[in-house]
């Protein structure tokens, strides 16, 4: 297990270095960072002066190492547009995105687990077919479209919920449903498949033969084993949600990391883009690493074959 852990950790570091390198090179080659810092009204002389002052005239490799050193010291640079510290900008936005991701995953699990279990109890029944249809349809709905439809239905026509902003918990309901619906189908399919497998296992037959109440068999023996892989998929889906939050936060104007990412991408605010890509990728990598470790802990074959 220690060897596996070390290999995966080394890979995680390799991936994050690769991402930082790609975003750094692109944001220094595809656009002129000196022009970005100088702003729209700057003259050519201003830009040239800033290029020297900020060290943008140095070789790219020198600039990259100085960037990495700064990042490791917690200095993510300053926004080209507002001049604020990027770390401050991000810190302000983390709570909204974290709340949205948590509510979304709770919504997805609240729908996926009961539906998956019920579908597995009666495979090929009407309920099972409904659950599978819901999964197929759910996977095909673009989340930004779903968000707009929810705004029209619950925000405008029924007037039940706010449609924009992140001031109260009510503001998060529609975005969480939008984002959670995206993760639900995969989780539901996994619960269903896991339960069908487990319910056919010998120890479940034994438990039933021993006369244990059906509820005990289902919830104490079957579900507990069936949800183990679901936990690791939940971690991966949580990572997907951080990426998906860009779209959903921009639809609902939630003042989170995703909205900040979209704003900075629309205005080519490179230091903010670089920092957010790095941060979300890091969170995503940690979550997939956790999922892998969890899988390895549960299934020794993974530790050996990888």
């Amino acid at each position: 297990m220690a060897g596996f852990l070390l290999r995966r950790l080394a890979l995680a570091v390799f991936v994050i270095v690769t991402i930082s390198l790609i975003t750094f090179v692109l944001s220094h080659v595809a656009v002129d960072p000196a022009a970005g810092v100088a702003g729209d009204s700057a003259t050519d002389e201003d830009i040239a002066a800033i290029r020297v002052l900020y060290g943008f005239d140095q070789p790219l490799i020198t600039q990259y190492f100085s960037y990495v050193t700064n990042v490791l010291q917690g200095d993510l640079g300053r926004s080209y547009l507002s001049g604020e510290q990027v770390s401050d900008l991000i810190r302000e936005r983390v709570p909204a995105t974290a709340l949205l991701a948590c509510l979304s995953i709770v919504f997805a699990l609240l729908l996926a687990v009961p539906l998956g279990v019920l579908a597995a109890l009666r495979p090929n029944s009407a309920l099972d077919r409904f659950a599978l249809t819901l999964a197929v349809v759910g996977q095909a709905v673009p989340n930004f479209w779903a968000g707009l439809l929810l705004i029209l239905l619950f925000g405008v026509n029924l007037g039940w919920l706010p449609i924009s902003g992140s001031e109260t918990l009510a503001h998060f309901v529609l975005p969480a449903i939008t984002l959670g619906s995206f993760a639900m189908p995969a989780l539901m399919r996994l619960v269903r498949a896991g339960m069908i497998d487990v319910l056919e296992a010998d120890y479940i037959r034994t438990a039933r033969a021993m006369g244990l109440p059906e509820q005990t068999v289902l919830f104490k023996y079957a579900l507990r084993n069936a949800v183990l892989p679901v936990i690791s998929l939940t971690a991966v889906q949580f990572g997907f949600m951080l990426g998906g939050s860009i779209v959903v936060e921009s639809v609902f104007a939630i003042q989170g990391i995703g909205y900040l990412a979209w704003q900075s991408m629309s205005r080519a605010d490179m230091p903010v883009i670089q920092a957010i890509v790095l941060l979300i990728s890091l969170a995503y990598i940690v979550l997939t690493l956790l999922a892998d470790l969890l899988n390895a802990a549960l299934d020794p074959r993974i530790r050996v074959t990888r």
Partner: protein
Amino acid sequence: MSAIDPLAANPSGARPSERAMRRHLGFMIGATVVIAFVLLAIFAPLVSPHDPFEQNLLLRLKPPFWHTESQPGYWLGTDQLGRDYLSRLIYGTRISIALGFGAILISGLIGITLGVVAGYFGGWIDTAISTLITTRLSLPVVLIALAVVAIVGGSLTVVLLVIGLLLWDQFAVVARTTTLKLRSAEYVSAARAMGASRAHILVQEILPNIRAPLIVVATVEMANAVLIEAALSFLGLGVQAPLPSWGLMLSEGKNFMFFSPWIITLPGLCLFALTLAINLMGDGLRDVQEARR
């Protein structure tokens, strides 16, 4: 992104029988809708009632035919610039279909090459390629695609390249696993014994026999590519105006959706129908392959 179990696919790689596919309702519905979209994309200039770029500010935001204030000749109404919505939706099919097929061509070429080479040669080549696959699996696709397009600048070509260069991982995973199994198959050993070159074995012996599971991967990735393009364009970072990308149409229409809800409903429905149809095709192919196992 959906995980694909290579073991769920037909291990022999034999082509699923046409009869079994014809009997699969989901596959038939999906395939029919996809073919209809492809035909619409090809014959867009012939079937579009108007020029999708022609503006008429006197005819702004005219509703579709089921509304009383609809404009004769404009079946699905007009957008905020008075452009015929039906024609824009039909031309939008071209972007999604071209993007979907283009992206899986690029990603398929990369992924299948890497997967087959890793699976066939094994050893350090397999270790290196497997590391590359795991690295790719650790990248948040939408975020990276958004960031690259934002930095480089959005256009159909950039979006196509970025998506194509990102979605190769499942092709590689499935190609590698299936090639690993076929490497020691009798007919591969026979070809080797007869002195066939490595290139011949890979292209003539292995590749045709891992085709079936890869087609399933292609459907999943095609649906993904269509959705990612739409998301990028919706955020204003993908295909640029005045091109009629469905995602861009949703983005442009959202400011008018409170009084003209159809303006977001219609492009969303097209996007949903195409993605659903591709997924149904993929699910059908997988079911048929599983049944043959």
